[in-house]
């Protein structure tokens, strides 16, 4: 893999876009308090901050989804009123989200040109496909413009979003956690695309929780905390420690490192597990009190193995034993009955019921414990149970009856963890538990995993964050293209060796 240089280019001249003293409140919550931000042509500007720092709100102000209570946005020095997303886009402001906002049923070229297909009432398919193909080639991606968007990978859909922005002659490109669902290779390609856009004079605002990426790609870094602007500095003048200090306003002890201890008996034993087209011949044991990491690139089959263990999709062959007993798991319900729980990576789709309350979400899997006489739910018992988890996991919510959908990503993740902890599982599978959540929430989750293991739970930790896997795990199983590349322990627990196994370099 060739290293690409992203040398810092000091901003010159007047900014393309300026955010000037913008404030925005929701009820009594001050999401933004008079923040300012300048974006210059050709710069990659990172915006970092914990969840709730006001990043999402600022993005929504800049893309025309929210209107500020005070202050304004200026383009080329002139105040503009971004009343709708359409207006923001027509002025050249585009945004790419963590979960690509595509039309799943439409073709790639339609996705790119929807809303600005050109003059006239007719759609010129061939012309449109050709222009789309041209843009995609500039992005170095091999995607058929006629393919249906739902058939693309997340990285592919994101490339389509970037192509969409390019087709609109974008001047300001906002990227909100764009790398969260990408493999290392796809991140490299994305960064090359961003660099090229910046070279052509686009101002890029890059929002990410992955600090290493922020350092790699940024010319300047701005930190928000609690809706306030804390600092804006050239990337070269910022260190990881100073950045984290700005973000959280307190010193964070280095990356949370779990203290391993002597594991107990084997809780879960898997032998020769296979499912055609997904994974083959996976064998491992997890002991009580042990954390077994699952490393590998996105799409290597780790989630599929977890889904087989949890009964979401059945394996074709192989055996699964808990406490020595062979299991036939064909539904999540059966998995739960045997003490296996799975915290899904896709919390919005699989993990949580967003319109329902925090309490209802937490108690859902074990709801039968809260049924009182007359088959009614004992609301008070439900509340008390939920309250315990709110304290233990420090879930920040105004009340337990708040709908989960309005919480921040990190807090949603904590609700989801509480939900599965309430089942008191003996085997707990975490799938990307810290993806897209802030540093503070991440540390809380790491601490919780450590506590659980200490309490005798067998933990499987699937994560694409290699330092996280290494810091948390006793042993690490590496997968590549559905195959088990080995289980690493002790002295072999080394970033380079694991990455080499994951990409298949001997």
């Amino acid at each position, binding site marked *: 893999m060739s290293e690409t240089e992203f040398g810092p280019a000091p901003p010159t001249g007047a900014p393309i876009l300026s955010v000037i003293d913008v404030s925005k409140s929701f009820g009594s919550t001050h999401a933004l308090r008079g923040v300012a931000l300048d974006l210059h042509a050709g710069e990659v500007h990172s915006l970092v901050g914990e969840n709730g720092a006001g990043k999402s709100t600022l993005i929504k102000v800049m893309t025309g989804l929210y209107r500020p209570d005070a202050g304004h946005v200026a383009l080329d020095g002139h105040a503009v009123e971004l009343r709708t997303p359409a207006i923001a886009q027509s002025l050249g402001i585009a945004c790419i989200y963590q979960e690509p*906002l595509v039309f799943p049923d439409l073709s790639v070229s339609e996705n790119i040109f929807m809303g600005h297909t050109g003059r006239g009432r007719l759609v010129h398919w061939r012309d449109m496909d050709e222009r789309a193909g041209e843009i995609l080639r500039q992005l170095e991606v091999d995607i058929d413009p*006629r393919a249906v968007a739902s058939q693309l*990978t997340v990285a592919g859909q994101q490339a389509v979003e970037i192509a969409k922005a390019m087709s609109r002659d974008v001047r300001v490109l906002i990227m909100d956690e764009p790398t969260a669902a990408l493999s290392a290779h796809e991140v490299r390609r994305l960064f090359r695309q961003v660099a090229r856009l910046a070279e052509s004079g686009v101002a890029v605002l890059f929002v990410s929780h992955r600090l290493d990426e922020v350092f790699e790609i940024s010319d300047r870094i701005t930190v928000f905390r609690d809706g306030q602007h804390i600092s804006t500095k050239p990337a070269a003048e910022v260190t990881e420690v100073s950045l984290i200090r700005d973000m959280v306003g307190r010193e964070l002890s280095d990356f949370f490192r779990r203290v391993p201890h002597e594991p107990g008996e084997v809780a879960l034993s898997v032998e020769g597990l296979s499912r055609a087209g997904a994974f083959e011949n996976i064998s491992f044991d997890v002991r009580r009190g042990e954390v077994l990491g699952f490393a590998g690139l996105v799409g290597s089959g780790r989630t599929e193995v977890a889904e087989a263990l949890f009964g979401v999709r059945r394996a074709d062959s192989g055996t699964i034993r808990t406490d020595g007993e062979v299991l036939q798991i064909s539904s999540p319900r059966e998995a739960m009955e045997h003490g296996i729980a799975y915290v899904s990576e896709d919390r919005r789709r699989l993990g949580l019921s967003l319109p329902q309350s925090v309490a209802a979400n937490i108690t859902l899997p074990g709801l039968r414990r809260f049924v009182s006489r007359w088959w009614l739910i004992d609301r008070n018992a439900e509340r008390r149970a939920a309250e315990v988890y709110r304290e233990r996991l420090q879930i920040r919510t105004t009340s337990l009856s708040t709908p989960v959908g309005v919480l921040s990503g990190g807090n949603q993740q904590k609700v989801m963890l509480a939900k599965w902890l309430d089942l008191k599982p003996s085997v707990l599978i975490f799938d990307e538990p810290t993806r897209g959540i802030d540093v503070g929430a991440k540390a809380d989750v790491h601490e919780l995993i450590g506590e659980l293991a200490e309490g005798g739970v067998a933990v499987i930790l699937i994560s694409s964050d290699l330092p996280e896997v290494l810091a948390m795990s006793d042993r690490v199983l590496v997968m590549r293209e559905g195959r088990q590349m080995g289980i690493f322990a002790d002295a072999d627990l080394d970033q380079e060796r694991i990455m080499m196994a994951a990409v298949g370099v001997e």
Partner: protein
Amino acid sequence: MIAEQDLPAAPSRSRRSLLEPERVKGLTLVAVVLATVFIFSVVVDDYLSARFVSRLLIAISITALVAAGETLVIITRNIDLSVGSMVGVAAYLTAEMLAENQGLSAPIAVLVAVGIGTALGLVNGVLVAVARLPSIIATLGTLSIYRSLLTNHAGGKTISTGSLPAWLIDLPRSTLFRLGRYDVRTMFAVTLGIAVVLHLALQYTRGGRHLYALGSNPEAARQAGLNERRIQITAFAGCGALAGLAGFLYVGRFGTINVTAGSGLELAAIAAAVVGGVSTLGGSGTIMGAFLGAVLIGVLDQSLVRVEQISEFWRDAILGALIFIAVFLDVTVGRRLKERARRRAIDEAREVEHG
């Protein structure tokens, strides 16, 4: 790892294989229709008589028009339950006007029927797009409101064949051309023509693609600057217009019109659309699919009467079962095809990743 700069200059692989879900759906439906006709022709003596085919084509015309309108709405991730009532109101009011003014010409009568349907459809559209009522609730309301208004207006009066102009009574027998021993009825030909034009319009006009975009991902559609309200209102108004036209054909087909005209058509229309592969989740499906769905339902409905062993009470149950089967196949087979395509995309991505 291969160098990415070495990628082919043009995307060479065509992913539009024969197994493309839309195409599979269409071909399957044609096969099912042909198989159904074949089975009946074996079971029933003189099944494909000229008279039967003519009656069948007229029956299909009305369902197909309403189903085409319903499709416009379903593609935008909404539903219109009031189509049967709109057909009834348009049919009755048009017939009433013709009974009172025998001299009115056919184009005026068609315009009146379509105009009435469009107006009623606009009301639905405004309720959904502006008042923000869920379409299932809004149109469930107008289903009964339109029917009640009609009942009040008519006061139980029936308009009979005798009071209608002769050209209208002859309309079902009007033939465009003959195909062997079969008459191709004007009503059917016009319906087919409208379906083809509408089908193409949905594929090749911006307005048509906007319907799909909104139904496929409303949030993305808003972000792309599409006018959500206008798209929704257009879909409902279009649905009303087609229901109005179907109302006109209804007058011609039955001659005798009372206040229950068209009731129950919503079931047939939604069934035709769903059987024809229009996804109730919005964003996918075609007018020709809905047309084929209407053909299948029409064939079954008209043919089962002629099988003596099957009581007519079973006909509705068979229709219901057909909806289940269609959706079941759509969900299972469709998902499998999509899964295959997705896996292929992942494999290709991996090839690039690892060379």
